[in-house]
């Protein structure tokens, strides 16, 4: 991605401020055509605006859609049926969850079956131990995870991230689609695992030694 500031210098023609609704509406127009989260840098490049400006506009739109008072001085209102969210490294429009029963009748496709308990546990281990081999996940879960790993890969939640230089085993990591499905921005936002390990402060020692 090129530097939007520099781009803006040589950028053509379009002065978003001259358009009806200005930069804010221009941002909305772009958000209407993306089919995956768009980063602030991508959006800034498209609009030939500084990233900071774009971020401020995005937050303003987010607040606006949620029914808050916008910086434009408009009064607070009822929330819109959609929301603008920053997840998995980018911004994207979603239908508001309150309306899920209505919306799901229209968008059957893309609805995914719920994960089994086995799949959830395997996903949890991979999320917290990535990059990690199947053998190691098996060791933690105590059961063979081959078929579950295959399912998670097919569903796009995890992916191959190379091989272990020592053992040659394939290592797995979670994908950005995983972040999206979880509604978080990065792996760092996963819930802390430490509170779930009472009385075992030095687990990591055992863990590293055993695996």
């Amino acid at each position, binding site marked *: 991605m090129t530097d939007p500031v520099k781009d803006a210098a040589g950028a053509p023609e379009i002065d978003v401020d001259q358009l009806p609704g200005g930069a804010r509406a221009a941002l909305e127009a772009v958000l209407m055509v993306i089919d995956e989260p768009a980063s602030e840098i991508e959006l800034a490049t498209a609009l030939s605006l500084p990233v900071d400006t774009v971020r401020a506009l995005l937050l303003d739109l987010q607040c606006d859609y949620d029914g808050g008072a916008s910086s434009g001085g408009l009064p607070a209102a009822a929330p819109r049926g959609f929301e603008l969210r920053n997840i998995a490294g980018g911004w994207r429009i979603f239908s508001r969850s309150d309306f899920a029963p209505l919306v799901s009748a229209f968008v059957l496709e893309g609805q995914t079956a719920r994960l089994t308990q086995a799949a959830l546990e395997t996903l949890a281990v991979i999320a917290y131990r990535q990059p990690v081999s199947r053998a190691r996940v098996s060791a933690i879960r105590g059961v063979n995870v*081959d078929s579950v790993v295959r399912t998670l890969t097919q569903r796009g939640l995890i992916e191959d991230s190379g091989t272990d230089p020592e053992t040659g085993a394939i290592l797995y990591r979670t994908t950005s689609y995983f972040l999206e499905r979880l509604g978080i921005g990065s792996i760092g936002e996963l819930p802390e695992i430490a509170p779930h390990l009472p009385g075992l402060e030095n687990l990591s020692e055992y863990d590293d030694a055993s695996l």
Partner: protein
Amino acid sequence: MTLTPAGEMPAGRPPPIQETVPAGPDSDRKAAGFAVTLDNFSGPFDLLLGLISKHEMDITEVALSRVTDEFISYIRGLQADGDDKALDEASEFLVIAATLLDLKAARLLPTGEVEDDEDIALLEARDLLFARLLQYKAFKEIAALLGQRLAREADRFPRQVSLEPHFAALLPELIWRTPLAEFAALAAKALEPKEPAPTQVGLSHLHAPPVSVKEQAAILGARLQAGGPLSFRSLTADADGTLVVVARFLALLEMFRDAVIAFDQAAPLGELTVRWTGPDAEWTGENLSEEYEDTPMPETAAEGTEETHD
């Protein structure tokens, strides 16, 4: 006291044993599933694990044979109901049970009376096994959290519409440089049946030879058929390493399931005695039900074994 792999049970499945446990699609996972009733503990397995891990309960007080007994009838109930979760639960239970058995064996060694390398190995393995149990529990809890988040997120639908026609028309004309034959080769490669990737990749450095549950079952079967009841201790006296002990424990569970042996344990601290109750001649290790064959016993156990050698 009671051991119950409650954590292993799928949410929403009312435990058949413990009527008091609330059930329902969204009932707490800890409350669902298998619960057992022992002399000094009644309740879900997770709770028992918790007590043991906080040292509020002594692992040596747990009558594993009773737990196993109740678990097997629980699993039979599931199977009778046509619940396909039964196998998953059974294999997870085996892992937990094997771990508990190791813990118990390690705890039962009187301090200062360590006599051979195997005893030392068991003692060293004890803390590691605790760690494993707790880690396993932690990931189960985290998995439940992830499940809740995924379910909540599934109510939001992303705008993901196809490109408006006038924008789609702007896309550069596709450059196609793939000859027909190359295209067919791509399809052939993608469609060719793939060998499932081996599970054992990268484990060779652990030096732990895989132990076959079937083989161990055959050994145990022969011994039990040859004489009277034997204690678990004597059945595993010649086992060279934790791995073989665990394999023999699994073998006994399977043999019990196939109703060829029975367990006796007089008191919580007493010896676990195994009796042959099956047919005299026809039974061999090959008769074992196939269902648990996928249990990655060697791999799991190898981890602990490896640790003790370091």
